[in-house]
């Protein structure tokens, strides 16, 4: 469904510096599955989501190499018109902050049918309304008819988040890109939303790219997890493998940084240090500076992703 091949992107910094934000990414999302991407802020995960549908402003790009395919259509060299046909129709987007992603002056129905009219001009108002209601229902909205005339500020946080999901679902796309859609909401609501999304993946045979910094969330929704750090993939594999048998030191550290809810009380273990800036031009492993088992070799040359098990890949000299 989605295929990213040797993709690298170099952005322009504020003072003209070149910032390699993503380096040599290879990923694939199969039909009807969910790939979770885990990474801290600054790891390049949002840039990845945006470059799939060409949302990075041309003016801020220094150089792009590699290919991105959606349903075997290449988006990396597509024109703006071609991209507009893909955006919203073949690829739905769920953004993190529903309050800023929605227009405060538009009613719920208008927010969602705008997507329909952007792609099809000959839809009758009645049909549009039916499709909006259908999308809201699929997003787990109870009694959507009652809220069609509400403005975003009149909806609760959970309703807004569901409306965002409905916007992504309304054109029945084959691929959904969700960028931290459940961050900073209550656990119960998070679970409901994840359940709704999972249902769509299974029932509608939808593919999904789910981005989050929280491995706990990724575990509950994705079939596969890829770990992104400083623009490089450090590990990828089936969710169970990554959670129960993490191989890269960074993945292990990420897991022990998660707050746990078990009887034994132990503070989550912080990862010492900070993410290197993308313009540091490291020649070695990007995680070497914070890694507990780094050796000289790690600082000098960069490890490639290598296969260590059934579709389990890791980029580390020590594995």
């Amino acid at each position, binding site marked *: 469904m989605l295929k990213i091949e040797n993709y690298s992107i170099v952005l322009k910094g504020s003072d003209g510096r070149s910032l390699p934000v993503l380096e040599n990414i290879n990923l694939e999302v199969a039909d009807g599955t969910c790939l979770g991407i885990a990474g801290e802020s*600054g790891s390049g995960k949002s840039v990845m989501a945006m470059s799939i549908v060409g949302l990075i402003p041309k003016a801020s790009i220094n150089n792009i190499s590699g290919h991105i395919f959606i349903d075997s259509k290449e988006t990396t060299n597509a024109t703006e018109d071609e991209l507009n046909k893909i955006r919203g129709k073949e690829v739905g987007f769920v953004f993190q902050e529903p309050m800023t992603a929605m227009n405060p002056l538009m009613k719920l129905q208008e927010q969602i049918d705008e997507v329909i009219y952007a792609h099809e001009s000959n839809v009758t108002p009645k049909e549009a309304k039916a499709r909006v209601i259908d999308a809201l229902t699929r997003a787990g909205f109870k009694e959507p008819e009652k809220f069609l005339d509400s403005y975003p500020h009149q909806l609760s946080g959970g309703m807004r988040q569901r409306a965002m999901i409905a916007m992504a679902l309304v054109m029945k796309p084959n691929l959904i890109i969700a960028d931290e859609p459940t961050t900073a909401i209550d656990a119960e609501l998070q679970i409901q939303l994840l359940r709704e999304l999972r249902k769509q993946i*299974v029932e509608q045979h939808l593919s999904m790219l789910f981005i989050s910094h929280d491995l706990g*969330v990724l575990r509950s929704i994705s079939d596969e997890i890829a770990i992104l750090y400083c623009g490089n993939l450090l590990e990828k594999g089936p969710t169970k493998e990554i959670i129960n048998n993490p191989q890269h030191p960074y993945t292990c550290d990420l897991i022990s940084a998660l*707050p*746990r809810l078990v009887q034994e009380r132990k*503070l989550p273990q912080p990862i010492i240090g900070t993410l290197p800036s993308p313009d540091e031009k490291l020649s070695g492993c990007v995680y070497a500076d914070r890694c507990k088992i780094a050796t000289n070799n790690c600082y000098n040359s960069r490890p490639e992703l290598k296969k260590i098990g059934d579709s389990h890949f890791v980029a580390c000299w020590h594995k």
Partner: protein
Amino acid sequence: MEDEEILKVSHLCKSFVVEKKISDKIKRLITKQNPESIKALNDVSFSVKRGEILGILGESGSGKSTLARVLMGIHKADFGEAYLLGRDILGAKDLEKLAVYRDMQMIFQDPFSSLDPRMTVKQILLEPLKIHQLVYDDKTGSLVHQEPNIENIFKLKNNIFLNKNVPDFFLKDALKEVGLSPDSLNKYPSEFSGGQRQRIGICRALILNPKLIIADEAVSALDVSVQAQILELLMELKKKRGLSMIFISHDVAVVRQISDRIILLYHGEIVEELPADKLLTDAKHEYSKKLLNAALSLREGCDFKFIDTKV
């Protein structure tokens, strides 16, 4: 004095009037009905001991932020009392109020909007000292209270008060305590990452040497690895300074890890109060169980993932 109660809150109530349309208000005034209102806090009583971290759990809308805001004097309580070290918080006025809040400071959720982007770190740290009119005393090496008088208030207005009276090394030591490099002093907030900004916020709260810190979702906006760093810092400060803390969050796992005792709020009422060690085993209220279940399946593996027929 291990068990000394540092903060005592009793029967706190706060409701907000909900009137969406101006016509509703006019109608109400004519008919002299009581306004329709939502009870954000309903008869909330609790206490915090010295050196204790009290966790307050609840989902959004449960009144946990209202509680912090009422204690900090941002909202006025409808009813109830709160005493910090024996001093009335809610009824305090002017200079009295200033003295109370010197001992009680707040850490905010959003490290981006809670720091003024036009102020340097030095100015951010000096601001509370300026408001509380504290000067550095060479002999004791600590901050002392300058008796507020007309002259000082005049100086305060002209912004010259204190800037010369607090040496840089005092501020640098404060930065070191929260794990920031001392040369951050002349930088602006935009030059720091989210975690570092949160440390600046903590440093600002600690510079007055308060006895109680209110942390409202202090780690919710941070990445997990940074979140763990900040939690570690808060624990360290608690041990070193004997600080008491009210730690408010919607994240059950985080609250349980850091708190000694936990209160669960639901629709503005305390439905459960128990030691953190017993949260997983002894919680009785229906709502607590619901909250725990959700958090457990999110944190410790999920049951709902395999809706498909594969498994």
